[in-house]
């Protein structure tokens, strides 16, 4: 097997524009001046502004000191403090530690002792702090668009409450998002007690409703599950994405990476099988990936169940179920692997899959003895469970005029409710509408009373996290715009009085903690962020129904339905399958006004600011579609025009639509970005369905992807090996020449086998690295520094652990004040991310190509090419091995960027931060320079964190210890792929990682001696599946 890595279809097809972009080194326009200004104009303008400067502006800015009037105890200006709090997300809750500068939250990290984050975080968590300082947040209570005060609303509610007290709530309805919160659950039950005829609906656009229904069918109870990927030896993901779109992604990623790392360091390594239609991050990490349409998952599972549990009750009915078009050897090998690893296997089904699939997965996990080991169940408690049918019955009541007052308790149903329900027109029939929203969004702009919603960093609240752990939401700052929390609105509805959220939440917690010494216990909970020991007891599910029979029935119905409505024409353009996937960045659209997330490249497509329909190359071919072509999508009587993007590795015959884009009232960042896939999503088929038709339009649409930027000319930069190779290989016998290349496992673009490691083979620039590998000593023109004093910082990035989730990118952006540039500048390659995550495909593009992710920050080369060309010494080395930028010296020649082989330097073509609104200034990290126009910038190894740790250690009178300095990317990484520390400390984690045989330096042959090195990826393929596609 000779993996040939390629970055995009344009590359493998060798289109002229790709050649051009490769040879240009920087994308078209990236190095030119802004449009419409010639160089001569620029000189004139410069001259004019210089002399104008003497005249009027450019006085030294006057800065005033505004101290505290009543200085709070223990706040020392300039020294951040940290608070534990919780970010609720759907029915999950992320335990966080938030950094507060003088009472303003600026940075979010995971809480190491909280079970949902384990100290790590993800892009949504990292970017949530920007949501607090969103300039488009609603500034006040509004009645029909005019500003009112909260007291006006309290008065208005008093009148409504009287009306509904008379009819016992018959005309009152509440529509909420799903939640798991003791306070909200208590208030909602009190509200129902007060208004017994109240109608309550719970709706989430993206939900785990199917899984709940499946478990309810199988066991008769409402159960939540908790996956323990760290304990699993064999994992099967059925159209599931536990590593990216699942709410518990952070702890899943940690568990999965633990299992990968264990294998690479000599232990057992987990093996991941993915069966899916849409290329997911989990699929990208899989050792074996099978592309099938989403509707083929159920038949696949039936075939698997028939092999695993042929004697189980009801399994006989599956024998006849039509097996999908899958190589039987694949299913055999998988079944064998799962059976061998009883109690150490894990089957996960995705939220998109129907309830019967989840029920069978539960049954199979139980049959295989995995329940209680790799997956555990517990009762849902204090929860409002999502239910589309509750929304549907609410809408029909609204349309029938039965609802007098509707309270939308968060959420944005006008935007994300199923299109066939036509929520907006039902809304028009309700006389009194009240909506709680962060912005005046699609829903809030149509209601009588809009109430600004407090951000979680401004709220008192509580939540049950994974496993039922009770967590508390503690505010970091008073509401910036007088926002209210759902707890406070419900509190008003229940008691008729305006009560602070603090009192309500404490009242809920009194029975939980006990009256004795309540304050002491409560403060302990606030301090820790959660109540330890509050997880719910595990439930061993008893199967009360016959899931296998249900699955057989589902498959039968599906086959009949397909045969009835669609003349069997599988694969033809008219019978494509439509699949709705949540956005990796915006989820269901709630984060649409967050610039960091909009500009965050999608992990697989590397697209920013857009959501084209995703197709496989083979699906696009008969339609004559190329990436960027506009199509008209017709499905179930609804149409949508949007561009397409060809993503290799998608199942053929699948059209994936990403939800969350196309908001009309998101704010100045998110409005009008992308295409609204909710307009074709119906309550019958919220997940996937067949029968979609695509028509090519004669237009194209510009899409901004970061994928071809900074291409490394096809040189072997990603290395991978297999577990068996790693184990069979003797520890390197090569002489230790240059510590970074003690050993080379299999190298990209050369064959894995040792005999061909030095022999040039086809494709790319093979063997080049081998030539250099033969040469033990690099020759340097420069007098090399010894770097044998003080701390010597270094980093390793383990490609084997990295799941490519982009948490590090947003963490870096938040920590280092990295600006957002917008779609059109991204298209020109002017994105400013200091850390990018490259994605390489290998394998047949029309088949099922494999993916490797590679985060690339500044390498901090000891012989840095950038430093050698800077004419003003703006980039220099410090004594600890950091390649530092002196922004004030930089005159913007960009020579450094030209000379950087890793293309990690970013140039401020514009004064991107000049007109920063006052509120967004609050989101900036005060410890990091905000760069101006004309300045080069790049990763600093979080030098501000290094210095802070040094000061803290000095004040504490001790030496700096390993782990005192953690870079933002390292701290955020849920997979613990990044290690950072002192290379001179042999006991440091980074020094140990560098001693690993898999350690290699990027573009080692250039002898830049980078401080950041990589650990090669290791795959763990099943030997039984060799040669099986």
């Amino acid at each position, binding site marked *: 097997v000779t993996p040939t890595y390629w970055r995009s279809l344009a590359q493998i097809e060798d289109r002229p524009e790709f050649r051009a972009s490769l040879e240009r080194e920087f994308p078209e326009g990236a190095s030119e001046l802004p449009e419409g200004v*010639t160089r001569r104009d620029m000189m*004139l303008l410069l*001259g*004019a502004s*210089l*002399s*104008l*400067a*003497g*005249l009027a502006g*450019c*006085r*030294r*800015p006057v*800065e*005033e*000191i*505004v*101290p*505290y009037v*009543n200085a*709070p*105890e*223990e*706040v020392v*200006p*300039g020294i951040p*403090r940290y*608070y534990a709090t919780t970010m609720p997300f759907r029915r999950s809750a992320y335990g966080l*530690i938030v950094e*507060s*500068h*003088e*009472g*303003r939250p600026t940075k979010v990290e995971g809480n190491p002792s909280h079970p949902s984050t384990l100290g790590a975080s993800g892009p949504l968590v990292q970017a949530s702090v920007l949501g607090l300082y969103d300039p488009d947040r609603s500034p006040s209570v509004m009645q029909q668009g005019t500003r009112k005060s909260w007291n006006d609303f309290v008065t208005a509610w008093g009148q409504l409450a009287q009306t509904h007290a008379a009819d016992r709530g018959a005309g009152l309805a509440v529509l909420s998002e799903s939640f798991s919160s003791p306070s909200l659950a208590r208030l909602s039950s009190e509200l129902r007690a007060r208004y017994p005829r109240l109608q309550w609906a719970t709706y989430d656009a993206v939900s785990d409703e199917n899984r709940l229904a499946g478990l309810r069918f199988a066991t008769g109870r409402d159960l939540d599950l908790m996956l323990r990927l760290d304990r699993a030896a064999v994992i099967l993901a059925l159209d599931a994405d536990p590593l990216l779109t699942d709410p518990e992604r952070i702890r899943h990623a940690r568990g999965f990476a633990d299992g990968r790392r264990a294998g690479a360091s000599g232990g057992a390594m987990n093996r991941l099988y993915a069966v899916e239609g849409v290329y997911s991050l989990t699929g990208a990490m899989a050792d074996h990936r099978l592309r099938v349409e989403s509707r083929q998952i159920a038949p696949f599972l039936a075939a698997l169940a028939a092999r695993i549990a042929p004697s189980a009750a009801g399994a006989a009915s599956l024998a006849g179920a039509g097996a999908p078009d899958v190589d039987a050897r694949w299913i055999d090998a998988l079944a064998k692997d799962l059976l061998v690893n009883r109690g150490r296997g894990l089957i996960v089904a995705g939220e998109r899959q129907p309830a019967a699939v989840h029920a069978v997965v539960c049954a199979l996990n139980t049959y295989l003895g995995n329940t209680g080991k790799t997956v555990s169940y517990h009762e849902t408690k204090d929860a409002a469970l999502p239910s589309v049918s509750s929304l549907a019955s609410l809408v029909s009541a609204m349309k029938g005029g039965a609802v007098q007052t509707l309270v939308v308790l968060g959420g944005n149903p006008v935007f994300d409710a199923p299109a066939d329900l036509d929520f907006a027109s039902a809304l028009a029939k309700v006389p009194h509408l009240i909506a709680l929203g962060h912005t005046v969004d699609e829903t809030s702009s149509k209601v009588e009373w809009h109430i600004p919603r407090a951000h979680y960093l401004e709220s008192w609240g509580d939540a049950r996290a994974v496993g039922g752990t009770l967590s508390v939401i*503690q505010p*970091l*700052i*008073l509401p910036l715009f007088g926002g209210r929390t759902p707890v406070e609105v419900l509190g008003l509805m229940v008691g008729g009085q305006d009560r602070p959220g*603090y009192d309500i939440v404490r009242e809920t917690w009194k029975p939980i903690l006990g009256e004795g010494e309540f304050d002491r216990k409560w*403060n302990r909970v*606030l*301090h820790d962020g959660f109540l330890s020991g509050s997880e719910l007891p595990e439930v061993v599910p008893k199967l009360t129904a016959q899931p296998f029979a249900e699955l057989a029935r589902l498959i039968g119905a599906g086959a009949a339905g397909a045969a009835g409505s669609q003349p069997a024409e599988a694969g033809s353009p008219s019978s494509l399958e439509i699949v709705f996937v949540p956005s990796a960045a915006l989820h269901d659209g709630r984060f649409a006004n967050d610039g960091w997330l909009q500009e965050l490249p999608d992990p697989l497509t590397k697209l920013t600011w857009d959501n084209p329909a995703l197709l496989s190359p083979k699906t696009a071919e008969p339609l004559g579609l190329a990436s960027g072509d506009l199509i008209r999508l017709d499905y179930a009587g609804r149409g949508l025009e949007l561009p397409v993007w060809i993503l290799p590795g998608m199942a053929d015959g699948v059209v994936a639509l990403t939800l969350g884009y196309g908001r009309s009232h998101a704010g100045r960042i998110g409005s009008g970005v992308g295409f609204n896939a909710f307009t074709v999503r119906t309550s019958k088929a919220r997940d996937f369905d067949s029968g979609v038709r695509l028509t090519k339009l004669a237009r194209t649409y510009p899409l901004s992807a970061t994928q071809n930027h900074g291409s490394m000319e096809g040189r072997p930069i990603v290395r991978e090996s297999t577990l068996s190779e790693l184990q069979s290989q003797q520890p390197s016998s090569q002489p230790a020449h240059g510590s970074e290349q003690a050993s080379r496992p299999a190298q990209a673009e050369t064959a894995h086998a040792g005999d061909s490691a030095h022999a040039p083979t086809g494709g790319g620039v093979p063997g080049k690295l081998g030539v250099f590998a033969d040469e033990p000593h690099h020759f340097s023109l420069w007098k090399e520094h010894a770097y044998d004093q003080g701390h010597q910082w270094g980093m390793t990035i383990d490609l084997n652990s990295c799941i490519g989730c982009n948490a590090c990118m947003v963490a870096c952006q938040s920590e280092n004040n990295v600006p957002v540039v917008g779609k059109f500048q991204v298209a020109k390659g002017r994105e400013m991310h200091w850390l990018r995550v490259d994605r390489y495909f290998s394998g047949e593009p029309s088949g099922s190509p494999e993916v490797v992710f590679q985060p690339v920050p500044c390498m901090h080369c000891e012989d840095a090419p950038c430093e050698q060309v800077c004419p003003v010494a703006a980039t220099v080395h410090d004594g600890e091995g950091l390649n530092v930028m002196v*922004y*004030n010296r930089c005159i913007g020649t960009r020579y450094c960027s030209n000379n950087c082989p890793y293309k990690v330097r970013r140039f401020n073509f514009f004064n991107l*931060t*000049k007109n*920063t609104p*006052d*509120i*967004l*200034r*609050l989101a*900036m990290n*005060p410890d*990091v*320079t*905000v*760069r*101006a126009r004309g300045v080069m910038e790049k990763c600093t190894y979080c030098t501000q964190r290094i210095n802070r740790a040094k000061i803290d250690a000095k004040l504490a009178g001790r030496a700096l210890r390993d782990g005192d300095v953690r870079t933002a990317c390292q701290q955020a990484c849920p997979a613990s792929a990044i290690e950072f520390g002192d290379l001179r400390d042999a006991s440091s984690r980074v020094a140990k990682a560098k001693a690993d045989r898999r350690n290699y330096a990027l573009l080692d042959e250039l002898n830049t001696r980078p401080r950041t090195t990589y650990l090669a990826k290791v795959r763990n393929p099943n030997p039984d599946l060799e040669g099986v596609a």
Partner: protein
Amino acid sequence: MIARTPRIVGALAFTSLFALTACARGCTTSRPPIHINPSMDDQPKVQPQAASDFFYNGASMREPVPGTVPIGGLREDAAFFTGKRADGQFVATIPHPVDEALLERGRQRYVIYCQPCHDARGDGKGILFQRGNVPTASFHQDKLLKYADGQIFDVITNGTGLMAAYRWPIPPADRWAIVAYVRELQRKRPATATGAPADTK
């Protein structure tokens, strides 16, 4: 471009005239100095104690939300942090062993924060009393001699009468050190009635 050039040249000539005639050095002005290259002097971020136009009181520094507990800010030892026992009574003795190091620390803090009013001997005849006739309590009056240690701590924490609260500048451990030192002053007073204790110049 052609149409624009004369205008730009005109503007240039006009402005350079001003630039030349404007007084660059040697003239007094109440305005801040001319600063041609801003060079990121004024960044759109909020540094400690900076002003902010966003908040109505003009300050960027916010007070912590009442009731919140920062990490490391859990004050479970009420006696140590408030000087009071659980029943609200002042603690009789310093909840910390008193040794030379603590007394020395207390002396340092006392000289910095207390001596300007209370003077080196604790007579309440400090520089503020001498110059401004600010009435200051003597530590050697009977009332204060009878104070429990916790009550002195409470006075430092919350202030009393004209005395301001010192909870912000002095951390609790240092407050206890000062209490220890004040007790030492009271103890030494009869012996050194004729002059200051040797170690408190």
